[in-house]
């Protein structure tokens, strides 16, 4: 139930609790990113091929070995999907949080500029957000290709 509340709807509540400051923003981002990461990790672990787990059992792996040698690497693609999605959520949340409940930051700057009809600053803010978003996505992507290089070895380029 809790996860069905759009985290942005919590903004008024969090302002009331924490005021307009850093910790309000961080809490909001934390709540917003927690669920995509949690759900994808959970799903990733749930959908590990039971055949591979049985294979591990026949090798008499300990619980720890089973986790690090089979379950975690098998769930990793799904976990990374969650992280990459969460990064997107993170930026959106930050923009909204800064626009509504902040006294500094890019969102605050954009909002301020809007009040003064300062088109150039507004556009600059958008561009900065685009660049930051792109960079974080690239970092996530390179993590993926680093950790999941085995997925990119289709038979065609063998």
């Amino acid at each position, binding site marked *: 139930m809790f996860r069905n509340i759009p985290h942005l709807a919590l903004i008024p509540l969090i302002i009331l609790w924490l005021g307009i400051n850093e910790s309000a923003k961080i809490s909001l981002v934390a709540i917003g990113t927690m669920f995509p990461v949690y759900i994808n990790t959970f799903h990733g672990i749930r959908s590990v091929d039971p055949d591979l787990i049985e294979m591990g059992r026949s*090798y008499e*792996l300990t619980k720890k070995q089973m986790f690090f040698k089979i379950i975690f690497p098998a769930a990793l693609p799904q976990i990374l999907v969650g992280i990459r999605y969460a990064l997107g959520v993170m930026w959106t949340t930050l923009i909204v949080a800064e626009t509504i409940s902040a006294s500094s930051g890019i969102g605050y700057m954009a909002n301020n500029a809007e009040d003064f009809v300062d088109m150039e600053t507004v556009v600059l803010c958008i561009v900065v957000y685009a660049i930051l978003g792109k960079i974080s996505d690239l970092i996530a992507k390179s993590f993926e290709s680093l950790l999941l290089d085995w997925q990119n070895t*289709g038979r065609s380029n063998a």
Partner: protein
Amino acid sequence: MNELNNTMISIKNINKTYNNLTALHDVNLDIKQGEFIALVGMSGGGKSTLLRLIAGLERPTTGSVTIDQADSKTLMRVMFQEDRLLPWMSVLDNLSFGSKDKNTKAHAQELLELVELEDYADHYPTQLSGGQKQRVALARALMSHPKILLLDEPLGALDALTRRKMQDLILDICQKQNLTTILVTHDVEEAARMADRIIVMKDSTNSYEEDCPKNRNAGQIGIVADRVLGEILDEKRVEIKTA
């Protein structure tokens, strides 16, 4: 070699039920060291269940499986219809999986040569054909110098030609390494070609068995296969009625 007549696996009064379903009923079976057994029978007859009980992947409801070795588990390896290779590991790393030996790499290379995949050590499973993957799975099973090889339809998903080549490879390895082998197969011809003894699983128990002649020729294989198939299907002769 008086060792040859030692009982390696002793199965006594095994019953296995899942809820109300009887998968195995009163199975008794002794398997000698170095023997090659084929388990055949209708789908759902309990072949896989029996193999999994021997492998220790499942416990019998009643009865016992005794392996004539102190440290039995490490001596036993299972191979399934699916290769069960770890897709995020190279072929070589898949072989080293679960092995703590110092000479692992060298031994793995040797086994890859044995299955004629020495050039594929750095490939990932996704880059291999079905037959190649099964050869890797076979090599992995041999890594820990097992004494017992348990095979659950390992060739079930392969085409007829690859299948035939794999049969010869497995037979050759089992003979050279004097492995005690249990092969589950739905292919009576395969059973008649490979096994020393064929066991028919029917009505949840081992209802019939047949010793296969040594150095058999194609004709003998056909006769044995026919007889075993007749036992499975409960038909001494299939009559074809014409209108």
